[in-house]
């Protein structure tokens, strides 16, 4: 088997991101759309951490570049905040309309 390099991780990240895009656009249940968005967050995190390990080291950095890992940690933080608020909105919508099917939630559609 060949050695695993940066391109392996980036192709994996692109595949997962694509599945997430498809899920976010093609599903009807709002919770599943949120789950697909989480798939996309994780795909981006894999790309960031892979570039942090295999990418070029900027001049002046001390041997190893941690920017990718720090970005991944902030994405995890923002993802957690986003999930909490989005699920709260979904619960509020469900309480009001008794459905979370996005086909029925078309009040803001022009």
């Amino acid at each position, binding site marked *: 088997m060949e050695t695993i390099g940066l391109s392996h991780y980036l192709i994996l990240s692109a595949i*997962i991101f694509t599945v997430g895009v498809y899920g976010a656009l093609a599903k009807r249940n709002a919770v*599943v759309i*949120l789950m697909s968005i989480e798939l996309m967050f994780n795909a981006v995190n894999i790309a960031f951490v892979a570039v942090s390990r295999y990418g070029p080291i900027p001049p002046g950095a001390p041997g190893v570049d*941690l920017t990718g890992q720090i970005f991944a*940690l902030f994405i995890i933080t923002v993802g957690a905040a986003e999930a909490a608020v989005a699920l709260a909105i979904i619960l509020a919508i469900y309480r009001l309309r008794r459905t979370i099917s996005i086909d029925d939630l078309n009040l803001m559609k022009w």
Partner: protein
Amino acid sequence: MAPGFLEPLIFYVAAAVLIIGALAVVFLPRIIHAALSLVLFFVATAGIFILLHAEFVAAAQILIYAGAITVLVLFAVMLTQQSQSLESNPFNAQGLVASFVAAATFAAILPALLAIPGKNRPGPNIDLIPELGKAMLGPWILSFEIASVLLLAALIGSIVIAKEN
């Protein structure tokens, strides 16, 4: 087993679990199965992070995604479930457009990702967690503080949105 053989093996197993888990989230007909596939996906992502020597990110991934967000999603699934029907995870009418947009996204991001100049040998295998702590409280201190304000705002905001009346 030599490490040179182990790393590709772990990568391909984790990658297979990741892709199967992601497809299961989108394509399984019952939403509770999709939500549980998401746990598998998050744990496999943590495996990829460990393979990339990002142990702290892997630990945060397990704690926050596999631990907290999964519980939130399962609670949302339980509280919004109308019936025990087989088709609780349906597709909408935009399947064709969605697959076109997804294919276009893949075609757009893949060349951009592969254009990243990577040295095909990894960085040094030193303990990065102290460096991560120094970076977090050094050059990234402003982002760190803003993240804590964001978490507080999300906490209060979700309570206000989700509570009765």
